[in-house]
């Protein structure tokens, strides 16, 4: 068995699981739920083997020893690991809270990320390490960051669901916030999808963003196409805003309560925050100190990690301030994960810095 084949199996398994989770949500039939969970577990096991195989291959190829050969050194490998953490986190929640409804939200993210890797031509080849990455801190720094990112991803989705459940009126700021967030995500995925299908290119993500992103929509040479894109985007946001209550109805049907969502949001941040502080910020600083002689240099990656850290610190402290529990806190949790995405992808793809090697 080769690792690409195993990764393929897990992508398929996550997508199949997603569909079965949808069926489960529609009929709330327990055997169906068990099948969905089984597919998720199959995907997870196959992905675990795939990561282990790649690790072994890399260790043999580089001859650098086991600990230094963790397959976490480029965008492809780290996104894969993120998916792995996310599914693990989801399975833990499923067993702890005895609720499968989240599966319908988590498996599509997992499947989409793996498919994104496949479509955009993120390099899958095992690449030799540049000298700066040859450190024992790599494993600790990257694994812990991604475990924290996965925990934050869970708090993001439960935060959004909390807002969906707890908003009543269309002119409420929290309602406008979540419809706008979902709308922007939908527009981004849609326009990127159109770009990918039109250009059918397999290039590195930075090049894709520089030369292809939005070239079929917002940045198309024709002015008419631009206008149409903006109008369609506006319509998408308007429709989500107008019919947002449908989402609420679905969530209520799934038996999700606001208290439970709030608890999961808080608990995943309470787990993610210390891990992120230690693995992301501290180990990153120690590593930078040993490699470059500066533990903190305000390069964009470091600064964005710090911004993320302050947002979650804000979330944790705001729970003690009167009037900040509930919706406002959930909004902060959602913004926190947007900062995570930007820290991980935005900085590498849009801004430059010492960390740019991560985006190869």
């Amino acid at each position, binding site marked *: 068995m080769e690792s690409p084949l195993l990764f393929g199996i897990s992508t398929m398994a996550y997508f199949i699981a997603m569909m079965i989770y949808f069926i489960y949500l529609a009929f709330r039939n327990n055997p169906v739920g068990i099948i969905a969970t089984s597919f998720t577990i199959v995907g997870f096991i196959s992905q675990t083997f795939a990561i282990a195989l790649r690790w072994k291959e890399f260790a043999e190829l580089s001859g650098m020893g086991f600990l230094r050969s963790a397959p976490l050194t480029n965008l492809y490998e780290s996104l894969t690991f993120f998916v792995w953490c996310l599914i693990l986190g989801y399975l833990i929640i499923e067993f702890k809270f005895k609720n499968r409804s989240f599966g319908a939200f988590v498996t599509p993210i997992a499947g989409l990320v793996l498919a994104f890797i496949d479509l955009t031509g993120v390099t899958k080849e095992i690449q*030799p*390490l*540049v*000298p*700066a990455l*040859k*450190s024992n801190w790599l494993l600790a720094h990257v694994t812990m960051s991604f475990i924290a990112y996965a925990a934050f991803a869970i708090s993001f989705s439960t935060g959004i669901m909390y807002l969906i459940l707890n908003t009543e009126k269309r002119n409420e700021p929290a309602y406008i916030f979540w419809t706008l967030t979902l709308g922007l995500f939908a527009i981004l995925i849609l326009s990127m999808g159109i770009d990918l299908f039109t250009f059918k290119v397999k290039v590195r993500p930075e090049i894709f963003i520089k030369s292809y992103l939005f070239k079929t929509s917002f940045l198309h040479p024709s002015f008419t196409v631009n206008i149409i894109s903006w109008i369609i985007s506006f319509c998408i946001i308007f429709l989500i805003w107008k019919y947002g209550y449908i989402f609420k109805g679905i969530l209520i049907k799934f038996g999700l309560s606001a208290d439970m969502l709030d608890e999961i949001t808080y608990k995943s941040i*309470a*787990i993610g*925050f*210390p891990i992120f*502080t*230690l693995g992301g910020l*501290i180990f990153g*600083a*120690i*590593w930078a*100190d*040993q*490699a*470059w*002689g*500066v*533990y*903190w240099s*305000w390069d*964009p990656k470091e*600064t*964005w990690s*710090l*911004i993320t850290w*302050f*947002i979650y*610190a*804000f979330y944790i*402290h*705001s729970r*003690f*301030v009167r009037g*900040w529990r509930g919706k406002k806190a959930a909004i902060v949790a959602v913004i926190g994960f947007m900062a995570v995405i930007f820290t991980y992808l935005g*900085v590498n793809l849009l*801004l430059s810095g010492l960390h740019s090697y991560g985006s190869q």
Partner: protein
Amino acid sequence: MEKEKNTLIDKIWSFFASIKFAIIIFALIATTSIIGTILEQREDPAKNLQILSRLFNESLAPTLYDLFDKLGFFNMYRSWWFISLIVLFALNLIICSLDRLPKIWKLVKEPMSPLPAETLKKFLIHREFTIKNTPDNIKSFVSDTLKKSGFKCTEVKEDTGFQFFGQKWNYSRLGVYLTHMSILLILIGALIGIKLGFKGFMEVGEGTVTNTVISGDKVVTLDFLVKCENFETEFYGMSDMPKEYRSWLTIIKDGKEVVKKSITVNDPLTFEGITFYQSSYGIIPNSLGGGIFIINVVSKDGRTNLLNLRFGDSFQIPGTNLTGRIIDFSPALRYDERGNSFTYTNMMNNPAVLIDFTESGKHKFSGWIFKRHPESWQLPDGNRVEFYNYWGVEYTGLQVRKDPGVWLVYLGCILISIGLFTAFFLSHRRIWVKLIFENKNTKVIIGANTNKNRAAFERKIDMIVSTLSKNKEGAK
């Protein structure tokens, strides 16, 4: 007993100690930090003018540049207002701790005391059941069970029976304050580093020594010399992908060689509190032709001769009349499709030397010999010319740092990890167990509380209850 907060100072104090103030500071630091990730920091103004005209408008860019320059946006993490935010953040941490720590400390130090049954019944976690035995018979079993669950309990004799009480992770309530103090330690460490240390850069050519470090617009002179014996880039296989950058350094103090070490990117050298990091490398300007070729000549019958040669030098292969002369050099030679050689970069990626061989004045053969390709070392007549190194043309770029505060930063990092893990993953749990002699049996009342994760503690209590009630007879 809270004091009435009337005076202005009290009001300011309680505002600075408040969580509300903390979250305002968090929000301000987080949002303003974004500016410095978009605009180039401490860079050429032209770069920022370009960014500004791309973000806004070509005609607006110069005006905005002046405005942003006045606001310190191009060196914002060192600007007066950003530093003020950090100072306010530190003040908040200090005042909040001064305000709360004494109260929490008193609570932590306060000994637990036995409680009446009515109070225990009011606890959120509270259980009652009966054991068919007398309190005297089962009390050691109760105490053992509690001990096994992690509660070392105090035993008190009461009129109607006994009471046990104990707690776990009492000090975890201080985790929050440990976290806050560690952040202060890190800030103090950083401040000491900025005030008493320096960061700089030095370039040392192969075979040369230096003691000057360029630190911003200052020049720092070290009281010892740094010598670069050699610099080398290792590559993956035959590719141009760098695997390791390595400098062999020697520290010379008072004319004596005191330390010798080879450094790589993740493995620096520290001497007298000053650390040297492998940071960059390059070719010493105008030196490319002036280096020394380290060549080992091996004759057919195995005689060797290690030579240091310069461009244009000749040498003889031992035991023959064959004379070689270095007539050309390339730092990175490659052949194109038609077999013509060309230099593809002026870095030392694939050094090659062209040697012309003559025998008693008559031209025999000539060819390129590559440092990285041992198969090119073999001559057509069975002799061998091994090309080890071209030395004396590269320099190593070292990041130099003296930071007397770094140990405080590291200490702060260790403590913040401990603080965060106690604050988030440990909970303070207290339990009271009252045994009341009632109708020849023992009535057990359990009351318990915790500051977080009540559900997990309730499961634990239920386990204790089931252990106790399974052993009704109290026999051991």
